[in-house]
């Protein structure tokens, strides 16, 4: 029956993988599954997390805050308290303490822990009489 010793063979395959250069791995992948190399890379630059439309319109300082928020770096955020107080008009991020103060949260993505999104843009359902 089977003479293969799976552990030894797996060790060998893993060792071989570690020895291979990046170039060699890419070449082998290209031979076996070329569609993988044509796909988008998984690691996205931080810029890509902010929608293009917003990237253009939002002033630099706000864009920075939005970017940092979206990638979950809550601790690193500056809190523009005074500006937020002046501009905060209710809804998500209106609290002067909030790191999201003054920023329209329209982009999808990961929100910081504790962030509650308020439903907007849809009228409440009227009660039937």
């Amino acid at each position: 029956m089977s003479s293969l010793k799976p552990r030894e063979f797996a060790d060998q395959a893993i060792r071989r993988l570690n020895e291979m250069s990046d170039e060699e791995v890419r070449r082998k992948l290209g031979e076996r599954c070329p569609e993988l190399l044509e796909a988008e890379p998984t690691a996205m630059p931080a810029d890509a997390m902010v929608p293009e439309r917003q990237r253009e319109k939002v002033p630099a300082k706000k864009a920075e805050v939005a970017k940092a928020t979206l990638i979950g770096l809550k601790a690193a955020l500056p809190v523009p308290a005074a500006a937020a107080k002046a501009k905060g008009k209710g809804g998500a991020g209106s609290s002067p303490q909030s790191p999201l103060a003054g920023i329209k949260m329209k982009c999808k993505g990961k929100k910081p822990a504790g962030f509650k999104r308020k439903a907007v843009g849809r009228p409440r359902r009227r009660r039937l009489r």
Partner: protein
Amino acid sequence: MHAWEWARKKYGEQGVVLKAEVRLSDCLDLLDLNGTRELKRVFAAFSERLKGLGVPLPANKGKNHGLDRAVINFFAEESQPAVRVIRAAFIEGERLWEGSDLWEEAHVQLAVRDIALLRNLARVEDPENELS
């Protein structure tokens, strides 16, 4: 029966089914815990390396087992001497009845990478012709 259905679906009138004795020599046996555990270990290393390169892992879509195939091919080709045959079970089709864990098209599949392992190759008659 399953083989005939597959052959007809894929090749129509031209499909044939062959039978053979397969010697399970240098077999990566995924019906055995040793085989599955080691393959899992190889997958961890494989996915880590691809992640480092920024290359996405392939995905299994329906009956196209792209991810499993990529990992098994890697295991089979990079070990020395190379794996010559792989045996695994597949669950396909519908449950036999509601709540059942038996599946209509469940089967064990052998992927023979070295035809020297085949013996007594012969053609299987079409069961539909035999009935008529």
